[in-house]
């Protein structure tokens, strides 16, 4: 690859966006730990962390410092290399996943440059997310196996079995969505919902399945059997301490973040919000198109984050509300309920599209959404 591309890229706005996305996901991960406690406290009607800083807002930083300064521990008979590699892998994959998520439409700069509020737009974004996220389970596996501890091993195996079981149903649910959208690019999916109905309307069942699977994939309660302290002490991270432990925790929260983002993009219109074209038209009446477009874009980004935060909250809400499954129940749910449901969903979707839906594909907004096109989209 020629380096001119590299250099020209590094000094472009796009690289800024990447940095932003990266930082945001880390930030959200950090503060999720805080949020988790606050939500827990709220749901259990008690006071959460409130010492470090106002409302304990500095708590995460304190945690970080603590994690860094803790002794790192290697259990006897552990495979050191893999022991370290496990959490690293988990974290890396988690951080990678957010690359293709469209956090907003384009920003138009004065010099006519167009900046996508998305690290990178690839036509197979959805597959990318899947691939990277499902890599994450290797981190758990490796870590659990490497720590030479029965609990860890069991946790790891559970994590793997659970992950694969629910990935099936998840993929199937996704296929139904694909039949509606006809593309794998997250950005296009979002743009398709830019005007008109969100996919949740077409895919209620699919969303439910997807959501359940997302819980399972991120090992959140009620599916947190890989790390359920009541049975397995700490599950796969029983033997972990200091920042390695921290990486596992972060990875989990980042996955939650990504899952929320994906869900909101796929089913809840991504960075689109009701009445955006009205606003656009209103603004263009007084201001320049450039300004109008950017305002709409920024608002869209904000809405997207709103949706994401809601889903993160939803994750925590469920965690502190629902009890944990038994393992065989978990498996049975995944295999004998979600899987057939997903297939049913596919068949229903297909039948619906064929018999009621419009035959030609949804409007293909594959080209870079420059303001003019956006307007056409919006006005239609």
């Amino acid at each position, binding site marked *: *690859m020629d380096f001119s*591309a590299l250099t020209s*890229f590094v000094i472009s706005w*796009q*690289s800024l966006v*990447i*940095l932003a*996305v*990266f930082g945001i996901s*880390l930030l959200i991960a950090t503060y999720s730990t805080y949020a988790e406690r606050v939500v827990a406290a709220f749901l259990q009607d008690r006071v959460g962390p409130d010492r470090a800083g106002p409302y304990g807002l500095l708590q995460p930083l304190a945690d970080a410092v603590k*994690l*860094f*300064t*803790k*002794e790192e521990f*290697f*259990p*006897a008979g*552990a495979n050191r290399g893999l022991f370290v590699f496990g959490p*690293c892998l988990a*974290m890396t994959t988690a951080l*990678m996943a957010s690359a293709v998520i469209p956090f907003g439409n384009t920003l138009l700069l004065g010099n006519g440059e167009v900046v996508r509020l998305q690290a*990178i737009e690839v*036509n*197979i974004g959805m597959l990318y997310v899947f691939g990277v996220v499902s890599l994450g389970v290797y981190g758990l596996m490796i870590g659990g*196996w490497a*720590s*030479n*501890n*029965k609990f860890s*091993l*069991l946790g790891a195996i559970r994590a*793997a*079995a659970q992950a694969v079981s629910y990935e*099936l149903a998840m*993929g*199937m649910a996704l*296929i139904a969505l*694909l039949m509606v959208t*006809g593309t794998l690019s997250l950005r*296009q999916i979002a743009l398709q919902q830019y005007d008109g109905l969100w996919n949740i309307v077409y895919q209620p069942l699919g969303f439910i399945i997807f959501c359940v699977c997302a819980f399972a994939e991120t090992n959140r309660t009620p599916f947190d059997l890989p790390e359920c302290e009541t049975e397995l*002490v700490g599950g796969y991270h*029983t*033997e972990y301490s200091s*920042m390695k432990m*921290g*990486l596992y925790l972060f990875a989990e929260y980042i996955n939650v973040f990504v899952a929320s983002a994906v869900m909101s993009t796929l089913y809840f219109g991504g960075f689109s919000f009701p009445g955006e074209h009205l606003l656009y038209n209103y603004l263009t009446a007084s201001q320049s198109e450039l300004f109008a477009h950017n305002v709409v874009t920024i608002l869209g980004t904000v809405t997207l984050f709103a949706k994401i935060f809601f889903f993160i909250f939803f994750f925590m809400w469920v965690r502190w509300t629902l009890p944990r499954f038994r*393992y*065989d129940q978990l*498996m049975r749910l995944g*295999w*004998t309920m979600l*899987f057939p449901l997903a*297939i049913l969903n596919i068949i229903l979707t297909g039948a619906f599209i*064929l018999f009621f839906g419009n*035959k*030609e*594909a949804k409007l*293909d907004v*594959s080209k870079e959404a420059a303001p003019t096109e956006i307007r056409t989209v919006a006005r239609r």
Partner: protein
Amino acid sequence: MLLATPVAYQPADYLPIIIQFGLALAFVAFSMVVSHLVGPKRHSKVKDSSFECGIESVGNARTPISVKYFLTAILFVLFDVEVIFMYPWAVNFRELGMFGFVEMLMFMGLLLAGFYYIIKKGILKWQN
């Protein structure tokens, strides 16, 4: 047939992914190194022994585990491949129309037959 939009991507377009990968790697490495340097190191025989709720750990930790897990994995492989077959179909669903739909119904029929078979075979009976 091919999973591609009319936009012609150049390999350079995938550069951001590499960059993000680099960032992630950097962060991870950083945290690892720092925690390694900063943290105290006081080893002892007992402390290093793997955790078993305080009692002596017995036997090899990496014991063979229930074959059910292997079965699950194998089944996943099988069914996931079927799912792979569905992706291109789903993307081109409208182009294929009724023909594709019927074909896929057959396909799923066979899939469900196998599914029913394994359920009946007791793959998910974790009790025994």
